[in-house]
């Protein structure tokens, strides 16, 4: 795999203020949605990010997409710091980084034709003539396995899977180098998921794009990702090669995640590991290791100090005192 780093996040933090009162509310506390995470995505690589609802996956995506400003930390794209970019330079970044959202029924404007939806990034970022734009729209439609003559149709004339293909086509229009996939298959029928996932794989092979694949469906994430980062309450608790993580998860939370996922065959033997309780509030995260309140292997030191992410095996990082 190409080892050239495309995007690198360092110590990325996003805290949302929680204020009370009507007009002049005082800040009561901070929701630590993302709390000091670091990761990198290489060229042509897929980094999967998994975790349950509220773990900070989507906030991470928003930070990468420059929709939210990070509280602290850096995002480097091709060696350039993105967090300090001003409006002008930001446009170049926005051209190279695109997103595909979860719900293809919400992400395509019901009042725009497919051709206009796909052409929008081209109109914003390039000075192509109408003829060239039309040509490019046909090109990317073919790339995602749709006929170019669907361009004048409206989104409601398509199925969910086809709509998601249109969303992917739009992301490809300006030859993006990184596509953030925010649960791109969660809203689709199971039979369609495999189609979309293999389409994404084929596009990566042919075009060399990188993906940041966010999801909670372990099977889908494991299938498409080269490396996987597991998040819990705004922290990355484990990062490893996809195969290593699936075959030998180190962190108890990762193990519980795998234990909770549906087996691919009813006779398959699985580890029994059911977590009790709810995810604690990100407003007042537990002391020490954030997972200690639910961890089946909790030790006294877990509530006192916070384990750091360390390399427990080559290219396998985990933040747990067990290792």
């Amino acid at each position: 795999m190409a080892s050239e780093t495309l995007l690198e996040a360092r110590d990325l933090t996003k805290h949302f203020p929680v204020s009370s009162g009507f007009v002049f509310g005082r800040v009561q506390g901070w929701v630590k949605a993302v709390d000091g995470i670091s990761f990198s995505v290489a060229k042509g690589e897929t980094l999967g990010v998994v975790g349950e609802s509220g773990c900070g996956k989507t906030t991470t995506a928003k930070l990468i997409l420059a929709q939210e400003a990070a509280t602290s930390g850096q995002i480097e794209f091709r060696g350039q710091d993105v967090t300090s970019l001003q409006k002008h330079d930001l446009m170049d970044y926005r051209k190279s980084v695109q997103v595909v959202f979860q719900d293809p029924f919400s992400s395509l404007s019901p009042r725009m034709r497919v051709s206009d939806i796909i052409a929008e990034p081209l109109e914003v970022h390039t000075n192509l003539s109408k003829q060239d734009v039309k040509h490019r729209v046909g090109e990317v439609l073919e790339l995602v396995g749709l006929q170019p003559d669907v361009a004048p149709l409206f989104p409601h004339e398509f199925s969910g899977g086809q709509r998601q293909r249109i969303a992917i086509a739009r992301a490809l229009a300006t030859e993006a180098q990184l596509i953030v996939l925010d649960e791109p298959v969660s809203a689709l029928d199971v039979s369609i998921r495999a189609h979309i996932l293999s389409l994404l794989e084929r596009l990566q092979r042919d075009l060399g794009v990188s993906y940041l694949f966010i999801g909670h469906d372990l099977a889908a994430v494991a299938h498409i990702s080269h490396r996987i980062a597991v998040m819990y309450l705004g922290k990355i608790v484990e990062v490893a090669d996809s195969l290593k993580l699936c075959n030998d998860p180190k962190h108890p939370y990762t193990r519980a995640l795998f234990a909770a996922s549906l087996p691919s065959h009813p006779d398959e033997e699985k580890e029994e590991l059911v977590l009790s309780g709810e995810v604690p509030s990100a407003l007042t995260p537990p002391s020490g290791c954030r997972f200690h309140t639910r961890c089946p292997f909790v030790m006294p030191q877990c509530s006192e100090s916070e384990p750091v992410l360390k390399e427990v095996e080559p290219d396998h990082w985990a933040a747990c005192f067990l290792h």
Partner: protein
Amino acid sequence: MANVPQTVASPVGSPIAQTARKGWAFAREAPLLPMVILASILFLAIFADLLPLHDPEVSVKDKLTGRPVAGTLPPAWMDGGTWRMPLGTDFQSRDILSRVIYGARVSLIVGLVGTLAAGAIGTVLGMLAGYMGKWWDQVIMRITDAWLALPTLIFAIFLASIRGAGLWNIVIILTLVFWSRYARQVRAEVLSLRERDFVKLAEVTGASRVRIMLKHILPNVMNTVMVLFSLTIGVAIIIEASLSFLGVGVPPPTPAWGLMMADGKGPLIGGDWWISVFPGIAIMLLVLAANLLGDWLRVRLDPQLRNR
């Protein structure tokens, strides 16, 4: 798996032909009664000059003497009535039928132009408040709130007394009265639209705010604006009639329904009911048709009702 077979049929005909076909299919769904009423009123108002009608502003002359017909004449089917003036005449011997038909022009112009102008201003301000947020929202919405608190008719009379009577002044008055309703409604719609993924997608792509408002927000609030438009037309026509009735609207001798009703309010007590009843029926029919159509549009275009 490289290509999934596609089942999407290719579109038939040019986009314009498609739009025209859709528009026709849409119109055919509309309820018959209001469409018939509106179509006939529109037809009469537009082609009034071509119809064999008496001059609405001049007394009808007696055929034999050549002098104005004295006094009021009742409708044709009553004693003393004549088919030359089917709905009778008013106290100045002007033909009621002709005045009712010409009066439709005033009501339609004022109703349509007034609500259109109010709709345009209100939609722009509502979009700015809803999408730009922050102080845009604060400033625009506080003005809108204050505006909505003004009693409509009193405010209109106040404006009329400043601006004076006249057709286009009424249009301006109606615009000033109604824009705030649009602003409020559109803002509410935009607040939910701006959270939709297709707007987020445009933001991530780097589209400018103006572009997002024009290409993504505006087409999606047009349904709401259309419904509001059809529902305010009726109110606008009533307000125009009320202002004319009160003498601060269209100046005489222009035939306007409100003015005709005011003319007839004295004779009404004396038994000459036709002077004010016929324009009253005209107002009722037009407003009823506009409201029925608006009601149908509301159900037809409401995304929540339609998508289910």
